[in-house]
Each structure stands twice: as structure tokens, then as C-alpha cells.
């Protein structure tokens, strides 16, 4: 197990190194840099001013030098300065992380707490009206884009109540915090919940057909015991995998949701930073996200062993 852990950690480092190279060079391949954008916005370009600004920002140096400056800084925890705001990149990124983390956490919680029970119900009640109803809900969850759902929620709340949930950066109470995050989390988590529901349902259906479930029923175990203790425990593995993968993909949905609900999180910030070609923000933020995703994958793999005693990692 220890050797396996060491090998996985080494592979994680190799993956992160590869990601750093890809991020850095992809960003440089995209046409235009911050200086081009600033001058494009100004509607003129003075070659001398442009050269001065490129020198000031260090983007006139050879790419390999720029890469070394960045990656060595990243490893030291020195994220450099945002080209746009001229503030330390870390100072710009850090306050936004908890906002997105809370939103993502709540969305995943929403996804699991809605998706798993409804998936179980749908499987247990297979072929009933309830099953069909839940399947329609899950299908709509997969079909509705989160930006559309978000706008629908906002429009409906304004039209019906004359009110609109708007982001409160400093909630004073739990209730305020919940009011701030619940609606956008539901909007972004609806798709994940639908996916979780579908996976839970199909996984449960497969397990419910197994011999040991029949045996459990024959021994007189209650429905609840059969469904939740025997079946769900064995059906949960693919669900965990999906939730883990969804955690990684959530950033895509969050970009849109943060824009629609005007939440100043890292997801929207990342898109803005890409628009400005604010390399220090984009590179460091993507690396941080990569670290989270790679770590999440690692944790999911480890959770397999916790949930399924048959899985034991060895050399």
C-alpha cells in the first residue's frame, strides 16, 4: 500500500508538471497578449510604448525564461503580480477561492443529497409512475444548460416576488449565507444531481438483481435494510466515481453560474483573466485547480478501498 501511495504521488507530480507546461505554452500560443488588449481598447498602438510595457511585464523575455520564473515562483508560493490590477496575484486569487469552494461544495452536497436518494427510489420503484416522473426530472436536469436555468430562476424570482437573490459577500448569519449560496448552488448542482440520480438508479438496478439481495430478502430483511444496507453500499462505487469526476468538471458550470448570479468567485475570475491574457492569474489559478482535481482523483481512488473491502491497493 505504501509503495502504491508513493508511486501515485510521483505520478501526480509528473501530471502536474505536464499540466504546467501545457497551460504555459497554450496561453502563449493564443494570439494577443495583455499589451495588445490594452492598446486595442485604447484604439491605437505606439510601438515604443508597447515595447516598454512588454519589457515592464517581462513578456519580452524568451519563453523558457518566463516559464522558469513562473514555475519556480509557484513552487515558492510567489504567484507574481496581476498584469491588470497590478496587485499580488495571490491577493487577488485567495479571497475568491472560499466563495467558489462553498458554492461547489454546496452544489455537490445538493447533487448527492438529491441525486442518491431519488436514484434509489427510482430503482426500487422501477416501472412505476414515480420512476417515470423521476426519470423525466433527471433527463431535464441533464438537458437544461445551467446559465438558462439560472436566468430562469432570476427572472422568475423578480417577476413573482419582485426580489432577486444577489450575492452577499459578507453574510452575517447562517441564514444569509444559505440564501446567498443555495439558489446558485441548486442551479449548478441540478445537472450533477440528475447525473447522480441516473447512475445511482442504474447501479442500484444491477445490484438489486444479484443473488445476495434475493438471499437477504429470503432471510426476512426489511426493504429498508435490503435497499440501503445491502444494495446501496454495493451500488455506491460508480456513484462516488461520478461525483468525483463531476467535482472536477464543476468548474465549467460554475463559470456560467457565477456570471449569471454575479458571484465573485474564481471561476468567473479565471474567464476574465483569460480575456485579459493576465498570465500570472490564469497560470497560477489553473495550476491550483489542477492540484485540486488531481488530488480529488487520488482521494476518490482511496475512497474506493474504504467503501469496497474487496479493493486493496498493492504493488
Amino acid at each position, binding site marked *: 500500500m505504501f509503495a502504491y501511495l508513493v508511486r501515485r504521488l510521483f505520478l501526480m507530480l509528473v501530471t502536474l508538471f505536464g499540466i504546467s507546461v501545457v497551460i504555459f505554452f497554450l496561453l502563449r500560443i*493564443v*494570439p*494577443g*497578449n495583455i499589451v*495588445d*488588449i*490594452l*492598446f*486595442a*481598447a*485604447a*484604439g*491605437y*498602438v*505606439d510601438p515604443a*510604448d508597447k515595447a*516598454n*510595457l512588454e519589457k515592464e511585464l517581462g513578456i519580452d523575455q524568451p519563453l523558457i525564461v518566463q516559464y522558469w520564473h513562473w514555475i519556480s515562483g509557484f513552487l515558492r508560493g510567489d504567484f507574481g503580480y*496581476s498584469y*491588470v*490590477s*497590478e*496587485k499580488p496575484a495571490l491577493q*487577488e486569487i485567495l479571497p475568491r477561492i472560499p466563495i467558489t469552494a462553498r458554492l461547489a461544495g454546496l452544489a455537490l452536497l445538493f447533487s448527492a443529497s438529491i441525486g442518491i436518494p431519488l436514484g434509489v427510489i427510482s430503482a426500487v420503484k422501477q416501472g412505476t409512475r414515480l420512476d417515470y416522473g423521476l426519470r423525466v426530472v433527471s433527463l431535464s436536469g441533464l438537458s437544461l444548460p445551467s446559465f438558462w436555468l439560472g*436566468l430562469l430562476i*432570476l*427572472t422568475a*424570482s*423578480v*417577476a413573482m416576488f*419582485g*426580489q*432577486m437573490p*444577489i450575492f452577499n*459577500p459578507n453574510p452575517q448569519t447562517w441564514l444569509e449565507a444559505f440564501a446567498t449560496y443555495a439558489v446558485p448552488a441548486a442551479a449548478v448542482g441540478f445537472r450533477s444531481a440528475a447525473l447522480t440520480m441516473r447512475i445511482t438508479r442504474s447501479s442500484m438496478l444491477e445490484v438489486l438483481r444479484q443473488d445476495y439481495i434475493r438471499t437477504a430478502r429470503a432471510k426476512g430483511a426489511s426493504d429498508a435494510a435490503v435497499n440501503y444496507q445491502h444494495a446501496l453500499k454495493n451500488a455506491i462505487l460508480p456513484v462516488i466515481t461520478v461525483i468525483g469526476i463531476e467535482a472536477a468538471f464543476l468548474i465549467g458550470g460554475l463559470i456560467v453560474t457565477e*456570471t*449569471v*448570479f*454575479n458571484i*465573485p468567485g474564481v471561476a*468567473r*475570475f479565471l474567464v*476574465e483573466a483569460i*480575456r*485579459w*491574457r493576465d498570465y500570472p492569474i490564469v497560470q497560477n489559478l489553473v495550476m491550483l485547480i489542477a492540484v485540486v482535481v488531481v488530488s480529488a482523483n487520488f482521494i476518490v481512488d482511496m475512497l474506493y478501498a474504504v467503501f469496497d473491502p474487496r479493493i486493496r491497493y498493492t504493488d
Partner: protein
Amino acid sequence: MRSVWALAVVAALSVLTASTTTLAGEPKQGGILRIYHRDSPANASILEGATYSVNVPFMGVFNNLVIYDQHKAQNSPDSIKPELAESWSWSGDNKKLTFKLRQGVKWHDGKPFTSADVKCSFDLLMGKSQQKLRQNPRKTWYEQVNDVTPNGDFEVSFDLKRPQPSLLAMLASGYTPVYPCHVSPAEMRTHPIGTGPFKFVEFKANESIKLARNPDYWRKGLPHLDGVEYTIITNRSTAILAFVAGKFDMTFPTHITIPLLKDIKSQAPNATCVVEPTNVSTNIIVNSTAPPFDNIDIRRAMAMALDRKAFVDILFEGQADVGGTMLPPPQGIWGMPKDKLATIPGYGPDVNANREEAKKLMQKAGYGPDKHLAVKVSTRNLAEYRDPAVILIDQLKSIYIDGELDVVETANWFPKVARKDYMLGLNLTGNSVDDPDQSFYENYSCGSERNYTNYCNKEIEKLFDAQSQETDVNKRKQLVWEIDKKLQEDVARPIIFHARAGSCWQPYVKGVTIMSNSSYNGFRYEDVWMDK
């Protein structure tokens, strides 16, 4: 006797009415004006900015030497008022403009304002300072200024190479705040210090901009507001919904399109909304350095094929203006009158007749029903660029031109235009001051960096200078119309239309004036107040 009594009653009533009006209109102190902001500006430095995303939130931090009257919708030479300058005077030969400065004015950090600050600011703008602006988009405004000379602490003179009466208009623009000498341009980008009614508090990129009342403002009793807060909301639908739901007191100025204005009026019927021109023209930039548009016939044919009314009807439900380079009257001061405009090829009301003429020109150039000209119409990936580009492509079909839309990301737009890597471009040109010097020299003079098409006509250059030196407004107008007509006939940068846009605020917001011929000059907000 009866008439005396009647007179007395009328007099008493009118006094009562007047006093009631005064009481109801008495500005109240306090409150934070909440406005959504459409975009996160690159920084807080107005001198380096080239978008009203910077002007709107930060204009209140500063003062100019002179300023357009903030409560007259139409900026004009007559509406220029003193601000940091108490008065101004021209020398007899109109080559020296002297300002007497206000005394006792302090910067937000407590340091005194003097003539040295004026010199520093204009040295920065003229590129004479040791310190440099990262960008200096309006350097051309001061090309006729030889030097700015302080005469003691409270007088300053602008020495000109030749008379340029429009200098005062440039100085009155929201783009011309006076900066302090003791704060570097870099600091002004992140933490601007001004003398204005509001102090800078905080700017969080993509999040918010906060200003607070300057308690030591030199205009005693102002501002009325305790502060102004801008919440940055890039999604227009979300922003408008938040305004409708009462989360904001005001929309971002001139951010509401004409179709969206209907939504607001239906959902928030009490809101006050106005529609004004933005002095932003939608135009075509033509690459006349390469075939096929190096052929003047094809350029003229293209300009003659335009059905400007169709653009205005489709995009603005009829609420936009057709004109030449200068914003058309009545809102524009310098635009050509309708009868003169109609004499320019392509501006006549009979679109079919214009297009028949255009077809003849195309046939002369070797194109016709059996041989269409294929062109790419490049434009930025923004709705206000893409939508008219699509209509343009549709209209060009009528004269044997098959257009293909080439959407370009903002980052690549200007480099692409600069290296002449385009055939036709659908472009927007914002004029920050409704003055011919600003428009002509920036966009059409030989060698200007914003003259994207490199249009260069030495004869017209002479006329540029002639109108620029003319002190008689009526004579100057005649010259400006002549120039504008020639620019359209030369297809220098065919103007399609001048946009209009809406601004809305809640009924309790008082004292807001949206400028009718500029989107850049009306955001001091020192006497805006809230009746609640």
C-alpha cells in the same frame, strides 16, 4: 378692486407654489448611490483610459480645469464652466490661454492643489514628463500646445503654436482630469487621488468600485451623496433584472439597448428612462491599400449600397441617427443638416436608385450578376459589432458582393487592423468630445494612430487646420460640413449610423443628466441626490 384681490390671490398662490416646489426639490444629504457597472475596467486611471468604463466610476474622484455643465444635456462651447480654474482668458492673438486657479483646494490626501499639478498633468499628456503614462490615447489633443507654464501658484498658461479654440472643449472633457504631481501614474491606476467630490475607497476587479464623500470638497455642501458604489455585473440580463428588483438605483449609463428598454419599462414602470445618442458611430473601415478596395469605384459602390434606415429600423427600432462623421443635429453641434447630407452619394432617400448607380460602378469594375465579388467582413466578437456586420453582408448582396463574416476576438482586432489583414471591417468609433478637432485629427489625419485605414488627403488636412483655427462658430460649421461631405464622398470611413441608448434610474434619484452628444463627460455626480 376685484382685480386687485384677484391679483393678490394669484400672487399668494404663486409664492406658495414656488416655496412648495423649492421644498420638494430641496436636495437631501446622504445615501449611497448604487449603480451596476457593465464591465471591469483595466484600471482607475482616466488619463490612460479609452473607454467610458473608466470615466463613469472615476470621474467623480477628479476635477478638471473646466467642465461641461453637468446639467445641460448638450455639450457645447457655451456650456463650458470653470472648475479648478476660476476663470480663463485668451490672448489677443488667440495663441495663449490663461487660467486663474481656485485657491484652497486640497487633494484627497490633504496636499494643496497648485498650478504645478496642472503643468504635471499636461506634461504627462504631452509626453514631456519624466514619468510616462502606460498609454496615452489622447496625446493628439495637445499637439498645438507648445508648453504649459505656471505663473505663480494659482495661474497657468497654455502656449499654443497656432490658435485652437477647441482646446477648451478638450479640457472640458471627462477624459481631462487634473492629476496630482506627488502621486505616480502607476499609483493612479490602483489608488487614484483627486480633488473631486468623491474619494476613492476600493476597486476590486470584476467585483466592485466604491467611492465615498469627500468631506473637504471645495464646493461647500457638496456632494449630496455619502458615496457611490458600482457593482460589476458583466451579464446584461442579470444586471437589468437586479435594477428591476430594486437592487440598484441606476443602470450603467447608456447601457440599455432600445429593445431592452421596453422590458424595463414594463417591469419597472416607475423608473425614469431616457434615450440619448452616445456619439458612437458604426462605420465601415475599408482596406484601400489592397485589391479589390484599392479601386475607388468599388468603394463608392459599397457606400452607395447602404440602406441606413434599414440598419436603424432593425437594430434600434428607428431610434438612431443617420449622419456623416460628426453627430447629426439636433443633439450634435457640428453635424451636417439633412438637406446637405442628402446630396452625398448613397444618402439619398431612394435606396433602389442608389443601388442601381452602385451596380453600374461594380460593372465598370468588372463585376456583375455572373461574377460576384467575394469579400470578408471582419469585426469584433461583440453583439454591437456582429449584428450590423450581418446586415451589411445582406445589403452588399444587392450589388454583386458576397460577404463572409469574419469574427475576431478583441485581443486580435487591433493588431489585425494595424497590419491591414482585412478587406472590410465593421467598426465602432466613440467620440469623447463633440468637436471636429477631436474627430478629424484622431480618425482622419495622415499618420494618426487611430486612422485605421491610413486615409491621407493633404487637401483635406488643410481644411482640418482651417476649421481648427476658426473662431467664428458659424464659419467653422460651414467648413466642418464641407470636410465631412468630402470624407463621405472619398469613402474614407463610411458612416452607417450613430447609435442611441437608454439609461434608467429609480424615481427617487434626482439630479442626473445624461449627455446627449457624449458618453464621456457627465459623471461628476456631485449634486445628484436621493429623495428617500
